[in-house]
């Protein structure tokens, strides 16, 4: 009998030990995230003043700022969102609602699964060979935005499909019963009801795109830019201008990479400042996505 008790005690001890190991391993991840944030805050926070946001990069670390790179990030994201969102949502709707089970659909599905695993720098090489030199779009904001749009397209497609899949079949059947056409079902019911899930996916995709560095370096984004793209609004008719699409650019992560690569410690502090801005943007986008997901899940009761 004491043998039996000993075995039980031993097994309980095993479970207890693994419980500790599991907690420690989980903490490795959490603590690293914490250390990274604290490290960036300590190094970068003193650098975050108004001048940092309103100055161009400079040879002098104290005067250098991120003006051209945050404007570049903003404009690139405009192009990326304007391309990837309609394209990705349309593709998701097609695959989930329209596609028949045939070889073409199969091909598209395998292809999307594979695209999601292609390293981001390969997208940069594709954009360099195809967009920059074959289509002659140059090393411009347009090229950069399209490159990142291609990169996040699979994420948007998958998010759209998953959001559509949560809508009960009865909704579709009810709409059909009232005489809706397929597009009317999609337009008036499926898209509005799936907006929460789709938005979550889009925000996460954009936060990924904001941090992407390698593909933009590959297409030849500049690391030192001391001017802004031409403004999108003009004083004469037709008042809007798309000249900025053709402007060279830099973005926040590239600016950070440029600064972190310098031996001078003063520039490394600038890198921490830029990194802090970057991580605050991506973390708040992710937080927004989590909040939206949570609220949508609470609100909708089919």
């Amino acid at each position, binding site marked *: 009998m004491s043998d039996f008790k000993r075995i039980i005690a031993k097994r309980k001890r095993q479970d207890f030990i693994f419980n500790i190991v599991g907690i420690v391993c989980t903490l490795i*991840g959490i603590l690293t995230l914490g250390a990274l944030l604290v490290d960036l805050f300590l190094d970068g926070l003193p650098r975050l003043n108004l001048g940092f946001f309103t100055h161009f990069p400079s040879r002098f670390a104290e005067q250098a700022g991120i003006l051209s790179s945050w404007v570049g990030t903003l404009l690139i994201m405009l192009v990326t969102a304007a391309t990837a969102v309609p394209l990705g949502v349309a593709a998701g709707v*097609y695959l989930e609602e329209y596609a028949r089970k045939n070889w073409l659909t199969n091909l598209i599905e395998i292809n999307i699964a594979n695209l999601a695993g292609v390293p981001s720098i390969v997208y940069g090489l594709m954009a*360099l060979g195809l967009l920059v030199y074959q289509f002659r779009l140059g090393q411009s904001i347009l090229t950069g935005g399209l490159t990142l749009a291609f990169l996040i397209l699979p994420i948007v497609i998958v998010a759209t499909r998953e959001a559509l899949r949560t809508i009960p079949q009865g909704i579709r059947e009810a709409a059909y019963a009232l005489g809706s056409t397929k597009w009317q079902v999609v337009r008036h019911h499926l898209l509005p009801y799936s907006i929460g899930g789709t938005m979550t996916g889009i925000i996460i995709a954009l936060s990924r795109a904001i941090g992407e560095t390698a593909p933009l370096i590959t297409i030849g984004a500049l690391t030192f830019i001391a001017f802004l793209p031409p403004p999108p609004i003009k004083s004469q008719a037709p008042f809007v201008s798309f000249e900025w699409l053709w402007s060279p650019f830099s973005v926040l992560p590239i600016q950070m990479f440029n600064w972190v690569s310098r031996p001078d410690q003063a520039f490394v502090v600038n890198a921490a400042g830029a990194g802090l801005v970057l991580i605050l943007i991506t973390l708040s986008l992710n937080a927004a996505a989590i909040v939206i997901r949570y609220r949508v899940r609470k609100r909708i009761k089919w």
Partner: protein
Amino acid sequence: MKDIPDLQHPVAAAAEQSPSPPPPDTRPAAARRLSRVKERIIEALLLLAAFSSVAITVGIVGTLAYESSTFFAHVPLKDFLTDTLWTPLFASPRFGILPLVMGTLVTTAVALTVALPVGTIVAIYLSEFAPGTVREVIKPALELLSAVPTVVYGYFALQFMSPLLQKLIPGLPTFNMLSAGVVMGIMIIPYVSSLSEDAMRAVPMSLREGAYALGANRIITALKVVYPSAFSGIVASYILAISRAIGETMIVAIAARMPPNLTADPSEPAATITAFIVQVSLGDLPHGSIGYQSIFAAGITLFIMTLIFNILGYMLRKRFREVY
């Protein structure tokens, strides 16, 4: 693919299926025809959007093949695969991809040494041990790890991890593959833990209950029953992690640096395939020069390496879905 019947006009189909007569379509014939044409056009546009993803793949493969074909016209494939020096920008260039592949393999190996055990243990812990509320908090928190931009991780590897490791390992240079690999490993922990946990949670409860009934404790059940049952899903997550580590760029470009270095010692600096592409792209490279072509040759090597793992992972995921 939903099981909506494939219909040209739902009202007409309703007439076939339901006993009650459908409401008559009172619109004039022209309006009905117009709406049918509109539906067709919309479906064609949506198909075009879905097909754009295929066009991107064709663009990637086509560009890599086209640009590297001019490279391989200059450099024999045998030299590319067997030469031990990679100096494409020197006056007397050598084009052996081995040093870059080695750099990629070493950093990947370091990253996997961190990510696979830790990720697996976290997955087992979250799936089999942790209370539900803990899991609900920890899982998204861990996933934030993969949301941090990789350039920030590069900074962290160089400014935090490298000095830390230098204290532990005297004589470690500032730039080294070890700190880059360790940070990369931490970054891909959530890829392993989240997917593995999903796979383990998909294992039916009855299998666990069977093990408990035979007197197994939690850890034995997890290791001997749940882990093997979820194995293909877990391996799929490992493969995703491998493919992420191979393609990771900014961490190694910042923290492992240059030059290409044929060594298996992670404490040395060396360039990976990705870091080389970044380094060359930073310079002003004339279109069509051999240096320009060399980044595509490096790129196609990288693409093929990740493609093999992606296909493997896709096949495993498919199998994993069919099990239960």
